[in-house]
C-alpha cells in the first residue's frame, strides 16, 4: 500500500480517484492465461455485440483471479472495449462476482422461505459461531472459510440448502453441521 497518514486520499492505493470506479485494488496487474484467452475469443463468436460477452467474461475473470479487482475490471473493460466504470457498475449489480478475496470455501446458506421453515437461520448462525464468531461475509483467520447468506438456490426440497463454491449441498442442519464442515478440505 502506498501512502500513510498525510497522503492525500486521491493518491492512496485501493481508493478510487476522480473519474475511476470503486473496485478494490489487487495491487498488481492481471491478465488472462492463454487458455482463458482462447475461451474468451470463442465467447465473442456467440454474440452479435461484444458487450453481450460481459457476464461470461467476468466469470472467466473470477475463475482466473478468484475475485474481481480493480485491475480485473480494467482488464475486462479493455478486452471488450467498454469503460471500466460501466463494467464495475454491471459487476456490482450481480451477487456472485466477488468484490474482495474470499476463503477457500465460500459457504452460501440459503435463508429464503422454504429453508427458513426448516430452520436455516439458526444453522447459518451456528455455522458462523463454530468457525470463530464470523460475521456474515467474514473470512476465518486461516483463510479457509467465508460464510454468507444467499437467496433461494432452487433446491427448496432439500432445505436447508447450501452451496460451497460451485457445489450444491442438501439438508444441512444443526445436527450434521460439524460433519458437513469436516468434509470441506
Amino acid at each position: 500500500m502506498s501512502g500513510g497518514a498525510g497522503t492525500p486520499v486521491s493518491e492512496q492505493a485501493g481508493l478510487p480517484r476522480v473519474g475511476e470506479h470503486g473496485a478494490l485494488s489487487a495491487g498488481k496487474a492481471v491478465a488472462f492465461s492463454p487458455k482463458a484467452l482462447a475461451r474468451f475469443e470463442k465467447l465473442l463468436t456467440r454474440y452479435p455485440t461484444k458487450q453481450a460477452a460481459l457476464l461470461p467474461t467476468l466469470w472467466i475473470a473470477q475463475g482466473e483471479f478468484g475475485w474481481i479487482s480493480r485491475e480485473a475490471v480494467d482488464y475486462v473493460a479493455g478486452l471488450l472495449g467498454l469503460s471500466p466504470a460501466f463494467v464495475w457498475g454491471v459487476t456490482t449489480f450481480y451477487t456472485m462476482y466477488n468484490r474482495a478475496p474470499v476463503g477457500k470455501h465460500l459457504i452460501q446458506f440459503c435463508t429464503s422461505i422454504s429453508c427458513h421453515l426448516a430452520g436455516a437461520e439458526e444453522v447459518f448462525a451456528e455455522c458462523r459461531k463454530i468457525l470463530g464468531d464470523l460475521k456474515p461475509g467474514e473470512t476465518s483467520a486461516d483463510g479457509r472459510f467465508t460464510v454468507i447468506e444467499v437467496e433461494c438456490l432452487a433446491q427448496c426440497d432439500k432445505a436447508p440448502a447450501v452451496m460451497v463454491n460451485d457445489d450444491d449441498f442438501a439438508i444441512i442442519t444443526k445436527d450434521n453441521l460439524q460433519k458437513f464442515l469436516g468434509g470441506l478440505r
Partner: protein
Amino acid sequence: MSEMWPAGYVPVLLARISRPDSPAIDGYLADGGYASWKKVLAGIATGEWTPSKVTDLVKASGLRGRGGAGFPCGLKWTFVPPKEKRGNKPVYLLCNADESEPGTFKDRVLIEKDPHQILEGMMLASFALGVRHAYLYIRGEMVHGAEVLNAAVDEAYAKGLLGKNVQGSGLDLDLTIHRGGGAYICGEETALIESLEGKRGHPRIKPPFPAVSGVWASPTVVNNVETLCCVKHILDRGPDWFRTYGRNEKNTGPKLFCISGHVERPGVYEAPMGIPFLELLALAGGVKGGRKLKAVIPGGSSAPMLTAEEVQSMPLDFDGVAAAKSMLGSAAIIVMDETTDIPKAVANISKFYAHESCGQCTPCREGTPWLNKMLKRVVNGQGKRQDLDLLVQVASQMGNGMTICVFSDAAIAPVLSGIAKFRPEFEACLAKAASPDFALTAPSDVTEKVAGRMAEGIHS
C-alpha cells in the same frame, strides 16, 4: 428419489429422469428423442412442415406458459411481426432458465436430468419463429446445470442437430448457453434481455413488448424451460393428446409442481394440470409429522398466501388458483403447518424482496426495505400499534402499475395476504411490545418519513 407422480400416471416431462446417464444424447436418441426435430427438418423441402404449422399445433394444444404468468404460448409467438414488417432484423428465442422464485426448483430437474428435451423444444420453437440463434439464460448459481447444458449443446452440434444447414435442410440454427451472475430480477423477461446484452438487469418499460423489440432491438420471444419442453411433446404426440391432460380447455397438459416446506416428502411432482391440492399434498406424504395445515403459498413467494380452508377444494391450475384469489405462478407450493410463525415467515419473505429490488422505481426501491424493516420490528416485539395499518397502507401503494415491472406487486402480495388472513398473529406480536406509550412515538428515521410520504401518495 425426490421426483414423483401419482400411481398409474405415466410421466411425460419426468419420463427419463431416473434412467442412468439420462443427460447423454445417445440415450435420448434411443428413447426416440429428436424424432420431431428430424421430422420437421425433413419436411421443410417438401413443404410438409412450415413455421405456421408448428405454431398452429402449439396454439391448438392450449399450452400456457409455465414461467409464471400462464400466457398462451402459441398466441405469444404470433406477436412477432411478419418478415415484411420486421425487415432484416433477426428474431431471437430466449429460454428462461433463471429459476429464482423462492420455492421453485422444477426447471433444475429438467436441466440437470434431461437437457436434450429442453434443447429439442428450443429447436422446434426456433423453427416456428424463424430464429437463427437461440439463447438459454441460466441462473449463475446453477453451475452444474450450465455444465450439463453446455455438454448437451456440444453433443447436438456433433450430431449435426445444430449448426449450418442442419441435417441438409438448408436451415441454420445456433444455440448458446448464457450464465447469469446472480440476480432474481433477471427472471423478468425484459431484465433478462438487458442482462443478456451485458448490462445490469433493469426491467424495461413496456411497450414495446419483446416480441416487437427485445434483445438487440430485435423481435424476441422469452419462454420458460418447462414451456419449451411441452412444445417438444406436443410435436411428438399432437395437441389432442396434450389436451387430454387437465381439468378444462383453458388449463391443459402435464405439469410439474414443486412442493416444499412442511411436508413429508418435498420434491418435484408431475401430474395432470388441475390436480386437486389435497391430492398433491397426499402424494408428498401429507403435512410433516401429521401436523395440521395452517397456510399454503401456491405459486412461489410472489403468490398471495392462502389459509388451510381456502385450499381444501382448490384445483392446481391457472384458473383454479386464481379463483382462490392467488396464482399458480411457478407452481411452487410452499406448505406451512400449525407450528409456523406467520409474521416471521412474512418478514422472511419481505427480506427477499428488499434484497432483490433492482432499484429503478421509488415505490419498490424504498418500499421493499421499509416493509422488511417494519415487519422485523413487529416480529421483534417492538411494533407500534399503528404499524399494521401503516404496513397495509404503504404496501397498497406499491402495486397496481406504480412501477416498471410487477416485482413490486409480487413483493406486497405476501405482506397484504399475510396480514389480512392472519391478523391476530401480527397483533399478538404487537401486544408483546414493551413501551407503554409506544403508540405515541413519532416516526424517528428517514425510512419512516419516506414511508409517511408514500402513505400520502407522494412518490417523489
